[in-house]
């Protein structure tokens, strides 16, 4: 469904270049829910933007159903972390969800049906007329998710969508994503920096190294398909997987495309965080 092949991204700045992604290759099958996790500042967002066709990679390519992505492809929806900035402040909730549908020319009735349904499944059936800024952060992100759902994408990319909402809302939204994924049969790539989330949500977790980024590990999450916040999170297998991912991330902080290539070989040092 979605293939990332030898992806490399170098940012060219004022007078230096920064290699964010070194060489990334992985595959996501149709209908899979894959989480992408890595240390802070490891180029997760860069990778996602390349996959969404919002950013041109320096080399390598992204294939969607075998076709190279060279611009935002139809059939793909993106949910950004900054819900406050990704919604149109001058449109009410309903128009925010409906706007991307206009181009599809589905007809009024079908459009209304899609919008109503999308808002209902995210639990906002009674907020049609509200403006985004009148809602809480969690509800705003629900609007963004509803917009993606109404768009009927084949692939849904989510860039740390719950990083800015509180813990309880976050748990609710995680379950919402699993529910939507199972109902709609959509392929989901979920980027996060939260280890628990990465283990809880997906069928697979791709762990990235720090920048310049390579794939550190592609881990299958062999938890049962029925998950819930209480039992899944307290199961021994969850703890094992969590510990494993945690270790990998710790290791990833000192590992990058450079260390792999043997160019730089240095002792572990405190990780530098990047905002």
């Amino acid at each position, binding site marked *: 469904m979605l293939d990332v092949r030898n992806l490399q991204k170098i940012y060219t700045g004022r007078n230096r270049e920064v290699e964010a992604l070194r060489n990334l290759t992985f595959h996501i099958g149709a209908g899979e829910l894959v989480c992408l996790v890595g240390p802070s500042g490891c180029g997760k967002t860069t990778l996602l933007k390349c996959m969404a066709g919002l950013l041109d990679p320096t080399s390598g390519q992204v294939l969607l159903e075998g076709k190279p992505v060279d611009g*935002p492809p139809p059939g793909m929806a*993106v949910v*950004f972390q900054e819900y406050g900035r990704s919604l*149109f402040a001058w449109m009410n909730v309903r128009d925010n969800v409906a*706007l*991307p549908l206009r181009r599809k020319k589905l007809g009024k009735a079908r459009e209304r049906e899609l919008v109503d349904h999308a808002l209902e499944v995210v639990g906002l059936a009674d907020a049609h007329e509200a403006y985004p800024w*009148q809602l809480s952060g969690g509800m705003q992100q629900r609007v963004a998710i509803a917009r993606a759902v109404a768009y009927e994408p084949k692939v849904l990319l989510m860039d740390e969508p719950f990083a800015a909402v509180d813990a309880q809302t976050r748990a609710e939204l995680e379950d919402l994503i699993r529910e939507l994924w199972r109902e709609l049969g959509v392929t989901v790539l979920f980027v996060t920096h939260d280890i628990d989330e990465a283990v809880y949500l997906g069928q697979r977790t791709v762990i990235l190294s720090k920048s310049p980024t390579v794939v550190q590990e592609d881990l299958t999450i062999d938890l049962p398909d029925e998950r819930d916040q209480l039992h899944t999170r307290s199961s021994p297998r969850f703890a094992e997987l969590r510990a494993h991912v945690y270790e990998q991330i710790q290791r990833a902080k000192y590992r990058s495309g450079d260390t792999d290539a043997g160019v730089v070989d240095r002792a572990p040092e405190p990780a530098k965080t990047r905002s």
Partner: protein
Amino acid sequence: MTALTVLRRALLLLGLPATLFAVWWYATADSTDFYVPPLSAILDAFGKVWTGDRLLSDVVPSLLRLTAGYLLAVVIGVGLGLLVGMRRAVRDVLEPVLELFRAIPPPVLVPVIMLFAGIGDTMKVLVIVSGCVWPILLNTVEGVRAVDEVLSDTCRSYGITGTARLRHLVLRGASPQIVTGMRQALSIGIILMVISEMFAASNGLGFTIVQFQRSFAIPEMWSGVLLLGILGFLLSLLFRFAENRALAWYHGLRRARRTP
């Protein structure tokens, strides 16, 4: 209770203006100073001067010229602003030129435009356009530049491009700044409306008021000053009304951000 709050608000709203009015009224009541006539005389003159023929022959032409010039400036300013703002290279090339034009005090354009357009209506409308267009243009450029990156990416990934992007994203996103530019332009427009008529005209508010002053028709002159003041106030009221309708979302958003 409610009657009391209404009374309180009315008192706050009208108390000081009424006091000032009363002070003016009584302080000038027995005024023998030729230049400062009694307020009663000014109001008397106001009723006589501005209700009859002058309303049609002076006030209306002034307002028509202001409206024409202002609207033209809005169309040109927003249109060019969108073109300039959306291309970084164009913006870089034109910005210093535009800043220079904006910095020229608009009234000095009156003698320059008189060279081209004589002293008719065209000149006055052109003067208003040439003064009003810069704040609108530069603020539009600023607004287009500041369109949110995440929102822009959102539009791209949902295939919202071309005119739909222009309409739903760029124009609306830049509208707070556009309105700021329009507000600045309105006060410049009023200044230019008056000055262009004071400089060279055969009718209009500015022309008439200066005529009164030169012929020492003092109460009439004061009534004209009063009328200009009222006009300025009413136009700003009208503007605020329109702004509150068009930018309701923006004010709401700002309030929401203020109270976390």
